[in-house]
């Protein structure tokens, strides 16, 4: 009886401790996410946003951003070279607000090859990602209407059909 009660108490303590730990980890994650996704810089927005969604710095670690900024003249099949002053400002902004997780698993630092991206988007079929309205998994704004202002809330997601 006594042992049984002790065991139940122990189970309760373990349960509460692990719940608190999980909650605090979630809170840290959410806090980091919201802070970094809101990071803004006018040069980054204008230059990166002229061809695609200006991808938030939190989506890649600093090492990947530096690799990307070091090869802008060969940027995923296009020349995206910018002057040295703008490049330095953008690189400092990206590295200063970069994510802390794992980086891209591809030789090129593609956000779509990171483990978290594949986890979040794994349920989408190739037909959806390759449809005329989406074209590529890199086209955030096709499904995330607030993407250009850093809003990736999954409750706002609408997946275009056809």
């Amino acid at each position: 009886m006594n042992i049984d009660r002790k065991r139940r108490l122990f189970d309760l303590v373990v349960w509460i401790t692990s719940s608190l730990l999980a909650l605090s980890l979630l809170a840290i994650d959410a806090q980091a996410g919201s802070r970094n996704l809101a990071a803004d810089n006018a040069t980054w927005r204008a230059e990166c946003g002229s061809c695609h969604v200006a991808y938030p710095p939190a989506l890649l670690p600093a090492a990947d951003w530096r690799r990307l900024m070091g090869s802008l003249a060969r940027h995923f099949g296009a020349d995206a070279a910018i002057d040295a002053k703008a490049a330095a400002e953008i690189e400092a902004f990206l590295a200063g607000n970069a994510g802390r997780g794992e980086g891209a698993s591809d030789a090129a630092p593609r956000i779509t090859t990171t483990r978290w991206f594949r986890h979040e988007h794994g349920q989408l079929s190739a037909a959806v990602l390759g449809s005329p309205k989406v074209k590529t998994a890199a086209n955030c704004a096709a499904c995330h209407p607030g993407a250009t202002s850093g809003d990736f809330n999954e409750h706002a997601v609408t997946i275009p059909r056809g």
Partner: protein
Amino acid sequence: MPPAVSRPLSLLAVAGILAAAAAAAATPGELQTGYEAIARKETPAFAGFSASRGAEFFRSTHGNDWSCSTCHTAKPVVQGRHAKTGNVIQPLAPAVNPGRFSDAAKVEKWFKRNCADVLGRACTAQEKGDVLAFLRSLN
């Protein structure tokens, strides 16, 4: 009340800002004159720019997959779309989009990038001037 000296000083500051803005701003015509000066040096036989030659250049591929019109459309008085990202590209013709060809540094940035993608090399002043003549002929 602010000291009397502040007004002339602030007027000077405003004048300075306007002068700096004027130095950066350009018109499509001024840019074309600039290309003409370079083209004359590059090609002694330079015989002017041609809108029809520019149109042909703009709509043709030059050894790579893309032409200018792949993203900008064959008659860029309308919006285009980036061939890869699908991003909307505002019309290039200055008649329908007055912001175009109004900033020399921006124009050179895009010629550098896009000529590298379309031709695999830099464009000559003759080619840039011909394309600008074509775009200025649209309305």
